[in-house]
Every structure is written in C-alpha cells, then in structure tokens.
C-alpha cells in the first residue's frame, strides 16, 4: 500500500452563510490518478484552492505532501505543481522562456533547467517552435506544454484544473498519455474534468454534489454501486435529484467567492 499524499478530514469552507465545501474527507495515495468531479457550483474549485494552499479552510484539516494546508501553505506550494484552467503560460514568452521562468521560480539550477528544457521539448516535439511566442501555438500544444511546465520541478503531486477543455480528441488523448507517464513515474495526479469518459482513465474518482462528496471509489466500483453503464450516468443520478428539487438553490447559485 503506497503512502497517503493527500488527506482531507472534515474539510470545510464557508463564505458568510454559504457553505461551499461541507466537511469532505478523502485520501489520495502516491502515484494515483485521482479524478475530482462535480457539477458547476458544487464546490470543486473551492476545495482545490484549499488543497493547493490558496484558500484557508474554515474548519477541518487537509494535509498535502506531508504539510498542513492551513498552517504550512507555503511548504505545500513548494511541493506541488498546478495547472489552472484560466491561465497556464505567459503568452508573450516562448516555450523555452516559460520553462526557464518556472524552473527558476522553483529553485532549479541553470544546468538543471537546461536539461529539463531539452527533455520537455523533445518529448512534446516542440523543438521547432521552442523560440516562438506561445500565443502562436495551437491550443493543444499549449496545454501539453503547460502540463510539462507544471512538472518542471518534479513535484510529488500535480493538480490539474480542467486541462483538456476544448481540445481536439486526439490531443486530449495525447495529454492523458502524458498524465499516465507522470503517474507511472510516481507523480500523483489530482485532476478535475467535465469529460466523463476521462473520468474512466482515473484510478479512483470522487463526485461532489452541493459541497459534499457523495461518491468515491474506482470507476468500476461506482458503476456497480449505482447500476450504471458509465460514469456519466452515475454523475447524472447523483446530481440530477439535487438539481431538480431541494438542492436547486445550491446547484443554481454560484458561491460569492467565485463560481466553480
């Protein structure tokens, strides 16, 4: 049994009277690909922000890479990689410059940065465009590069927020192969996605509804538990009752701290 690298216990976050994340508890083990799913407004983004040390919990605890996210957030940030949905790379810098920048920020030495740069460019086939501004590259290439940059300092855990949004089918799959490679190398991958088929690529999956985790397990276990042929159907079963009756307010409203 490999070590636990993420451990949440009763993790909670409230914004005024609104409880965005309601006492969630779960573990993630080293080398796992963990899918963190949920509808918009379910509290996913808030939960992730707490785990990466950007937001402090209202109550409960979480330990990431051996550090408490509430009291040791700086230590957490140093040990993880993060690829956000809205922003990944500086568009007016080249791929080479982006790698160098993040390498420097995470304290890699000059030779280390050069070595990593060569590795990444070769692996992604970007040598020809290494010195072109990122804004000129197609979306799929950018996302793959952003992922590699998030891993430049070889962190224990990498958090990915909807990394394949809008990307074409082939590039999506190439991206997931990069994820598999990273996991095979021992990196833990914590990923959120709207593509339900991608949920199947994960070792384990959790589904958040109205601030709580309503299901957690391997894709196979969940499908059996809910008698559903796909994770998509599991998701609908869990989320739809909440969306159509009592929990409608939660599902329809966006938390004041920012939508999920």
């Amino acid at each position, binding site marked *: 049994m490999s070590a636990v690298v993420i451990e949440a216990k009763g993790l909670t976050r409230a914004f005024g009277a609104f409880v965005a994340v309601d006492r969630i508890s779960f573990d993630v083990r080293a080398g796992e690909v963990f899918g963190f799913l*949920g*509808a*918009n*407004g*379910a509290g996913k983004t808030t939960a992730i922000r707490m785990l990466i040390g950007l937001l402090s919990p209202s109550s409960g605890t979480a330990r990431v890479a051996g550090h408490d996210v509430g009291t040791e957030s700086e230590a957490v940030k140093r040990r993880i990689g993060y690829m956000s949905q809205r922003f990944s790379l500086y568009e007016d810098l080249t791929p080479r410059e982006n790698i160098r920048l993040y390498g420097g920020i995470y304290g890699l030495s000059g030779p280390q940065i050069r070595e990593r740069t060569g590795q990444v460019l070769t692996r992604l086939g970007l040598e020809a465009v290494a010195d072109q501004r990122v804004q000129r590259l*197609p*979306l*799929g290439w950018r996302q793959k590069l952003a992922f590699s940059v998030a891993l430049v300092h070889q962190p224990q855990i990498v958090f990915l927020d909807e990394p394949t*949004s*809008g*990307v*074409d*089918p*082939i*590039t999506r*799959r190439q991206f*997931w*192969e990069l994820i*598999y*490679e990273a*996991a*095979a190398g021992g990196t833990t991958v914590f990923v959120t996605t*709207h*593509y*339900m*088929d*991608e*949920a*199947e*690529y994960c070792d384990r999956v959790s589904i958040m509804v109205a601030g709580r985790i309503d299901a957690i397990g391997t*894709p196979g276990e969940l499908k059996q538990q809910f008698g559903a042929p*796909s*994770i*998509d159907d599991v*998701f*609908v079963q869990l*989320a*739809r009752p909440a*969306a159509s009756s009592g929990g*409608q307010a939660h*599902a*329809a*409203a*966006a938390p004041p701290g920012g*939508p*999920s």
Partner: protein
Amino acid sequence: MSAVVAEGVTKRFAATTAVDAVTLAIDRGELFGVIGPDGAGKTTLFRMFVTLLAPDAGRASVLGLDVVRDYRALRRRVGYMAGRFSLYPDLSVAENLQFFAAVFGTTVAREAAQIAPIYSQLEAFADRRAAALSGGMKQKLALCCALVHRPDILFLDEPTTGVDAVSRREFWDLLSTLKKGGQTIVVSTPYMDEATRCDRIALMHGGRLLAVDTPAGVSGSYDRPLFGVRVHARYKALLALRAYPHAQGVYPFGEVIHFSDARRDTSPDVLEQDLRAYLVARGFADASVGLLAPTVEDAFIARTAGPA
C-alpha cells in the same frame, strides 16, 4: 426551402484561414450540429451566418436572404446565442429578458408561451443578477433571450461549453423539445457525444468540413473494423498496442482502448485472433477483445489523424 445554404464560404484573419471553403445546406426544422474542437472555425462560421462577419470568398444565405446584402432583414429574424456569456451581468434574469424582448419589439408577457419550457426552470431566480447564476443557468437564460422574439432560426454557439454534464443533458433536452415544436436550430459544440442528439452534423477541424451527414452516417463511414480492448493495466497495454506491428489507430476511450488494424484485406475474425494472441503473449492474460460499433468520435479521429 433550405434554412441555411453555404457555398465555398471562406474567412481569413491575417495569416490564418479560419474558415476554408465550407459548403453545406441545412433544412427547416432540423436540429443541426457543427462538431469540432477549439480553433476549428465554428464561431467564425456562425458569425458569418448571423451577419456579424462578411465572408472573404463564397456566399451564404439564411432563410433565403443573402448574409451580406440582406443583413438588416436577417438580423430581425435570427436568434443568436454567442460563445461566452453574452448577457448583462448586472441586470436580473427578468430584466435581461425584458430588454431583449423590447429590442425586438415585443414583450415577455406576449411571448410567455414560446419560452415557457425553459423559463419554468428560471422563474425562481427572476430577480437574481445574471452574474450570480451558475454556468448552466446562465446558458438557459441566454437561450431564453435568443428565443423570446420567435426567431425563424436559432444559432447557438457552444452553448454547453464549460457547463457540467447534468446541465448539458438538460440543455439538450430543451433543444429537443424546441425542435419538436418545429424550430430550426443550428448548434456548435466541442463535445462529440452530443453529436448523436442532432438530426445531422458537420464535423469541422482547422477551418474545413470533414463530413456532413447524419450521426449514424458519419460513424458508419468508419471504414474498417473497430476493436475494443478491455484490460486492467491500461497504460501498459496502450504502449504494447502501439508497438504491435499491425496497429493503425490506438486510442483510449475511457475504460476501453479502441484499436484499428492497418491490414485491409484480412477478415475481422483473423484480426481479432491475432490481436488477442499478441496481448496474451505480452502478459495481458485478462485482455478481452471484441468488435465495436464506431462512434462519431472514432470517425473524427480517423479523419484528423493524418497519415498513420
């Protein structure tokens, strides 16, 4: 009469050709989907149809009106939902609706029946500011506003992008309801699984149309046997399959790996046997191999994969 006719429509921006010689025809009462990833040119194509952009080459007509010459008349009859959230965040749900009704010379009261199926889901939030709605609700509101003036045709540009799976389903349920009432709807989406909810689809990639047909027609155009491989150690199996000498296309699809063989003249049974033998020899004793019905996504991948 066709609802939309495009002939060789092209649009260029500086060095890129966003839309490259697109030709298609959409019938009245159809629910037509334009399927493709970001950057395929869907938004540019839609903007030309709703007269926001003029084509650099080719011609297009909507409802029999030319998009360049008759744009004023067209703008009265078209319902358009733009890509990102394009309503007023600081106005409430009700106020946004009233505004769009007024702009088209009508009132919400008069059109209540028209928008009822959708508005019933929004009614509870009539006074809430649009910015405070969740993604799924915003899109429903935008749909309402596009419908409120009873357009003869609806153009919805990526209405389900960024919205969760449940809201997406609900949205498509709404579209089906509208279509039953005779509404012509043209939708664009990057989600391949939504293709099956349309009457006909156009696959778009890099500004070009890859296919225009019914979803069954498109998936049926997959020209060779497609196998699904189920195995526990998925990543390792993926790498092993790539190394298989006869491998043509190897792509993960959730739990199953889709595999197509490069050999054209061999019977499917032999292909299957060879594959199973190879996998077992490589140590995947639990591998199960079976024929699959190809999906739209398989067809899309096959057409965009380029030379194998």
